[in-house]
């Protein structure tokens, strides 16, 4: 556990110092949310209807944008080989790196998103259910992104391939994330519970898939 805490701490320090992945994602997120109302036009009713969907899709794409960095640097500089030989299993290493990606990129975005929704005339009663659903769903987004990142490990500019591989897996999160935040949602609703189930399943399965792909690349 302390071994993995060291890895988590290092990845968060790196994310804070390099800025790269998280910064790009945040910049993209803000750019889309600022530009969309201008592109769609000032009709407040239309914006209000589209707001949750726009926020979810922008969140998905922003997470994907930074996904290729989850393992790539560690693979290129040989750190991943050292980690693969260390006592913690590669599954736990993959999980820890996905958690670091969530904490440094997806979580800040999903906390900010509902409030940036004000730019889209988001209904105020949706803000809290949306925040909760996004915080839950964004963890699954990072976990699934780690599968894509591990499969495209030695592909330069693998971003497009990651999108093609991972976007189908994001569809259930989008569907239940949306239905948890449309209408007059209560904080805890059935869609949110299904979203939580998807996140829990990803938590267990994604590190196994990612570690298998990493092992294949390290051979």
């Amino acid at each position, binding site marked *: 556990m302390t071994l993995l805490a*060291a890895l988590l701490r*290092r990845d968060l320090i790196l994310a804070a*110092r390099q800025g790269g992945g998280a910064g790009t994602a945040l910049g993209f997120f803000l750019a889309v949310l600022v530009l969309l109302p201008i592109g769609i036009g000032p009709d407040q009713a239309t914006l209000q209807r589209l707001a949750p969907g726009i926020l979810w899709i922008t969140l998905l794409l922003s997470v994907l944008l930074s996904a290729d960095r989850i393992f790539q640097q560690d693979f290129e*500089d040989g750190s991943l080989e050292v*980690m*693969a*030989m*260390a006592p913690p299993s590669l599954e736990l290493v993959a999980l820890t790196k996905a958690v670091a990606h969530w904490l440094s990129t997806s979580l800040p975005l999903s906390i900010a998103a509902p409030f940036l929704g004000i730019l889209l005339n988001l209904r105020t009663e949706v803000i809290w259910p949306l925040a909760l659903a996004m915080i839950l769903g964004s963890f699954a987004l990072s976990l699934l992104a780690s599968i894509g990142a591990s499969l495209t490990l030695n592909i330069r500019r693998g971003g497009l391939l990651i999108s093609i591989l991972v976007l189908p897996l994001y569809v259930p999160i989008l569907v239940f994330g949306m239905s948890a935040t449309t209408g007059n949602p209560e904080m805890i609703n059935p869609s949110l519970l299904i979203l939580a189930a998807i996140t829990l399943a990803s938590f267990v399965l994604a590190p196994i898939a990612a570690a298998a792909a990493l092992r294949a690349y390290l051979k």
Partner: protein
Amino acid sequence: MLLSAENLACERGGRTVFSNQNFSLGSGELLQLTGANGAGKSSLLRLLASLSEPSHGKISLEGGAADLTSGQQAHYIAHGDASKSALTVAENLKFWRDFLGGGDLEAALSALNLAPLADYPVALLSAGQKRRLALARLALVPRAIWLLDEPSVGLDEASQKLLVALMSSHLKAGGLIVAATHVPLGVKSDRNLHLGGQ
């Protein structure tokens, strides 16, 4: 401790890199791997590191911790330096110390004369200094088996002497070293294995 390989063969991408290799290495012994480029020196080290599986034959380790693979009891210094340029030298080593299960940071810094550079970001280091940082892992976390892939590449004369001293003291303490190299290491090898050309 006895590390031995029996009838070992390695295949990469459908091509047999080497086959039928046998050796055994006891405590305090150095095995020097030589051979042309592409003869399979790095592939053999990766097999010993448990990073890949041999296509034929087996590797066994006697006298080590029973619940760990040979890779988990080994240091593998490959071509990559496994260091992050946004962190300082000390931060990189602290991470590896914590992740690999504890060691002596001060000893590692002084063993490769990195103490004056401890607070420098790795981005500012030269290639040779980064190499020393990679090698400092050896002195940082105790591991019985050292797998070194051309460890002296890029090192100046003084640093090579530090590496020789480090390897000698590891052998004296009963450790095992397998080193792939094109140039003499400066440490007397107990066994030699020449790959290729059979």
